[in-house]
């Protein structure tokens, strides 16, 4: 018994993609967070002389690619140790982000303490749009080569994306009431975000209603590609139209002490999202295996009786 367990763990080869993803995420966290913490609280320059724009871009691309490689590299079966690791690291980052966000960072000069909700609101927005983007990519891949892996990953990323988009709207409302004076208004940014939430919620409903996996996969992929049009519109809404919602912030418009909680939470939610998508895609993958399995053949004796 123990022998067979041993061999099964030995035959399960380590996924080489995970090492690449971890390396990319480390580079991203180094330039996004560690350099800033060292600069802010230890008076040390760890930037290797790289300018801010390059460091920011490295952090964004490294985090994005790292997460995507985790998602693409997973076989959706076997050991879940990588997912557990992602969850543990995500929680550590969220604890760091919460501590810096609530206790270390000073209040904003006009908004005061309520501005701290930005440290969850902005990372939630980034990751919600990222989850939708990943679902869009999965939809294209599924229609292109028909691999059921993409269908499972699409189901996971839409579901996680919808949860994040819902949280985004709630956090936004909580921030809006004390600053803008209203919980909600039909401003272009808020309206397009609500459209995004309900469009993808609709795709989840569509998936529930269709029993045939082929039709479900094709229809929901087509719907995902079309619904995805709203993602760039959400992003550009504050630039195209005059709105109540402010423009996107960038490192130059945000004081340095605010960067650390913002970025720690961004990495935390990114890793949490990646782990949740993988876990959810594994559930979808198991269900698909069941649905796609050929019906059990009738035994010859049973067949005789029927005839």
């Amino acid at each position, binding site marked *: 018994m123990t022998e067979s367990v041993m061999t099964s763990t030995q035959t399960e080869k380590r996924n080489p993609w995970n090492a690449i993803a971890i390396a990319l995420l480390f580079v991203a966290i180094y330039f996004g967070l560690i350099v800033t913490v060292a600069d802010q609280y230890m008076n040390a320059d760890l930037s290797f002389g790289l300018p801010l724009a390059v460091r920011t871009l490295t952090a964004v691309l490294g985090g994005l690619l790292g997460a995507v490689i985790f998602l693409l590299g997973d076989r959706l079966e076997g050991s879940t140790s990588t997912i557990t690791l992602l969850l543990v690291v995500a929680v550590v980052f969220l604890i760091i982000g919460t501590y810096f966000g609530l206790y270390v960072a000073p209040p904003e*000069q006009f908004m005061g303490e309520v501005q701290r909700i930005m440290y969850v609101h902005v990372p939630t927005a980034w990751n919600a749009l990222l989850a939708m983007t990943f679902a869009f990519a999965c939809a294209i891949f599924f229609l292109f080569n028909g691999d059921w892996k993409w269908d499972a990953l699409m189901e996971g990323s839409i579901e996680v994306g919808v949860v994040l988009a819902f949280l985004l709207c709630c956090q936004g409302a909580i921030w809006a009431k*004390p600053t803008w004076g209203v919980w909600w208004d039909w401003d272009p940014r808020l309206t397009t975000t609500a459209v995004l939430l309900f469009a993808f919620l609709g795709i989840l409903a569509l998936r529930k209603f269709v029993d045939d996996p082929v039709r479900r996969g094709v229809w929901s992929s087509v719907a995902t590609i079309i619904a995805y049009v709203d993602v760039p519109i959400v992003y550009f809404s504050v630039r195209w139209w*005059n709105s109540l919602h402010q423009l996107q912030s960038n490192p130059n*418009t945000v004081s340095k002490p605010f960067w650390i909680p913002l970025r720690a939470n961004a990495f935390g939610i990114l890793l949490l999202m990646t782990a949740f998508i993988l876990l959810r895609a594994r559930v979808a993958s198991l269900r698909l295996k069941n649905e796609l399995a050929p019906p059990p053949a009738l035994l010859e004796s049973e067949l005789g009786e029927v005839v």
Partner: protein
Amino acid sequence: MSNVANNTSASDAMRRKTRRFMIAAFAVAALAFIVIAAGGINKNLVYYWTPTDLHANGDKAYGAAIRLGGMVAPGSIKNQRGVSGLEFDVKDATGVVHVKSNGVPPQMFRENIGVVVEGTMTRAGYFQCNRLMVSHNNQYRAPKAGHPMNKQELEKLMKSTEGLSDK
């Protein structure tokens, strides 16, 4: 054997079909995006009028439900009818509109901040506001030394008798 061959050809046919679906979905998505981004919807979809827009629309502004957006002109805020009555000017680069509002404004309300007010233009020449919303920009700043929000200074002041002894 023939079964396997049939299966592969069937899946190839399905793949060709799903690829056609992909192209069709892309076409619809791209078209929708182009229409929204470049098709003049920017001009048709207006969240608020600036004071200049409001003046340019002349008579249309009277009695219609409109949103007016702009900056609170410095020195224009008046609390004439007690705390719940508020008057101020909303301005943009080329226009000013006088606004009367009832109710307590959000805490962020101050001079030189963006506001969006819902209501209507009256013949008396002022904008009657039913709903006042404050908009802020994308600047998030830690309070500098000497700023009333500076935590350390505030805590020090609260613990000391400084400021009380003057009176």
